[in-house]
């Protein structure tokens, strides 16, 4: 039987969740025995080369490109997992959700205390650039998400247990320590 195929991506996240995936330490070798990686920052494959079984998403959607990538994942993966607070709720980036997007752009490019070089007041509007969304959306408000793994980042053990459960079809082992956050 061929190995299940996993893809991962980081959208509006800090890569902390991916760090946590790597934090399963030497078990990463077991993981490579168990699964094959496709599109992922871990192996630097940039585009899907085949249909995948599991897609792991870090971060929510703050721009049009995030939405595009997320929809690609939905198309190419049988199961999608929202990994971490940002993917599940928007997380830290969603702090801007209470502020009109115009104000955020003005602060970032024109009026913020660290804006010193943009003398001409240029705003990023090249067609090649992703377009900024009115607010940061959690993944499940864009596509259907099958599982949610909470934490910021979720502990390595939680990720490991979840993947093992998915791959073996066994019930997930969720001891108190791995879902306790403070």
């Amino acid at each position, binding site marked *: 039987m061929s190995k299940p195929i996993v893809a991962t991506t980081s959208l509006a996240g800090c890569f902390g969740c991916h760090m946590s995936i790597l934090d399963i330490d030497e078990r990463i070798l077991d993981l490579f025995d168990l699964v094959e990686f496709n599109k992922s920052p871990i192996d630097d494959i940039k585009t899907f080369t085949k249909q995948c079984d599991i897609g792991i998403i870090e971060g929510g959607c703050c721009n049009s490109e995030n939405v595009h990538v997320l929809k690609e994942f939905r198309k190419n993966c049988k199961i999608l997992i929202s990994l971490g607070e940002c993917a599940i709720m928007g997380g830290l980036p969603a702090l801007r959700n209470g502020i009109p*997007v115009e104000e955020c752009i003005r602060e970032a490019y024109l009026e913020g205390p660290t804006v010193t070089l943009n003398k001409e007041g240029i705003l990023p509007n090249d067609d090649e650039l992703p377009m900024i969304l009115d607010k940061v959306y959690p993944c499940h408000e864009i596509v259907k998400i099958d599982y949610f793994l909470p934490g910021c980042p979720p502990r390595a053990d939680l990720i490991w247990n979840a993947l093992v459960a998915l791959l073996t079809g066994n019930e997930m082992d969720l001891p108190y320590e791995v879902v306790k956050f403070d």
Partner: protein
Amino acid sequence: MNSQLEKIIKKYDSDKFRLMDILIDIQAEFGFISKEATHDVAKELNMAVVDVEQTLTFYHFFTQKSTGKNTVYLNDSAVACMMGREEIKKAFEEAAGCKFGENSADGLIGLYNTACIGMNDQEPAAIINGKVFTKLTPAVAQQIVSGLKAGKNVQDLYHQELGDGKNAAAEVKSMVRNNIRRRGQVILNDFTPGVALKTKLSSMQPKDVIDEVKKSNIRGRGGAGFPTGLKWDFCSRSTGEKRYVLCNADEGEPGTFKDRVLLTERPEMLFEGMAIGGYAVGADQGILYLRYEYKYLETYLEKVLEDARKDNRLGKNIGGVNGFDFDIRIQFGAGAYVCGEETALIESGEGKRGEPRDKPPFPVEKGYLNMPTVINNVETFCAVVKIIENGGNWYKQMGTEESSGTKLLSISGDCAQPGVYEIEWGMTISQMLEMVGASNVQAVQVSGPSGQIIGPKDFDRKICYGDLATGGSMIVVDKTRDMLKDIVLNFMEFFIEESCGSCTTCRIVPKLMKDRLVKILNGKGVMKDIADLEDWAKILPVSRCGLGQTAANPIATSIKNFRELYEAKVQKDVDYDCGFDMNKAVQASCAFVDRVPNAH
């Protein structure tokens, strides 16, 4: 410091526990509460500025900017909308030349929304410069605005005769109507002030009073239904240097207005009931916590208090009973539904933001100023007077086994005879609908937004504890209404607006639920959305107070009783639809950076 401001602060002895009164007077005097005034108040009351601001920003009727020389507060509760509020709103906006939430360019008129003002039986209604206007029409709205612009006194713009009963008294002069449709044996029956106080109490010890109230089996009429005798008993046993009797006249539950009618027609009875409470628990100070929306009754109620003092129904050695001293002051709120919750009410009465306290301790142990305190609804105090007059056994004969006595219902919505009805507990909803002249009924909202919305299959159920318990709000909804939009959505918006924000559950879940409901109403819903709503509703009971605990009820009970309305609106052949629209989502940012959206 401004001399007017100085005078206001002096009037309340620079007492920080009277901050509400101080802010109310400043708002009335200057039309808003400025930064400077806030700083001056903080300094004089020896408080941090942020503490003053906490209170100031919590209440709807305190503002930090002017709300116009003349201010219109138009009710936006469900029944107001059912009775044609939208047309009135348009007429006001056209005439004033500004939108709701703004002042007109010349600053003459400010238009603002407000939650239920206790006039559901005579909507659409508004409070304009402190005066209540009922049964508005678009033409009347226009006349009012042009009158105000021409500098006329608001009272000269009344479009109706003065109301019935005491509404027409010189101290009230209001167009509000009582609409008393049915008088029962207890509260709306004949009443002579002072009989209980002067002829009964002299031969009763405080403990006898509590026993008589216990014998009557009366339960609190504010909604929660706690046995009144037991509450008084607890309070009388708690230790404290001083005790207080508070009356809850916040009447904020949309759809109730019976306390307003009692405050108009039975204030002597209410004050007598509070005095009896004072005698029973050993309190010499009473406070009537009155919602700001009823400020038009202030002068009148002060006069009733004054008359009671003159007649020895308040003051020292009341009714000739040696050492029975009791007096009452009126404490106004400033527009916050949550202040009807008893511990929030106490906080508010102490000049703070109306944030419910953790319980226990309950108010009977640590209430107002941390002293043992009894809090009861207006109607509860009124009923107690008759219980003392006629005995607990007399009272118990009425109603049902579990629910003794009578209950005032505030009935509004789609019926021929909206108004106040004093019924015996045990009446069925069908009987009630016949009594008020309602036909073609789709649903009845029992107990306001925090209660439940029921359909015909439940119309044989009884109004009583153990079945349909209620604080008295009954809203009839006929078959022409779009229930989910007209009622359920309006109520969810109400809870979101009125949450004090303390509990994460209450602050967030109702908003998420409302968004999901809107998605369903917009035709983007799927079956899973209905299941999600049911699941999320189960989270709310962990909230600290009754507001959050019941905030999902409009959606939860309408799904339970009218699931078909939801199912008719969701897409059956799709199992996921997020409702996300990329073009809409990038519109604002693209416009700001001057770029043509190229979403695909």
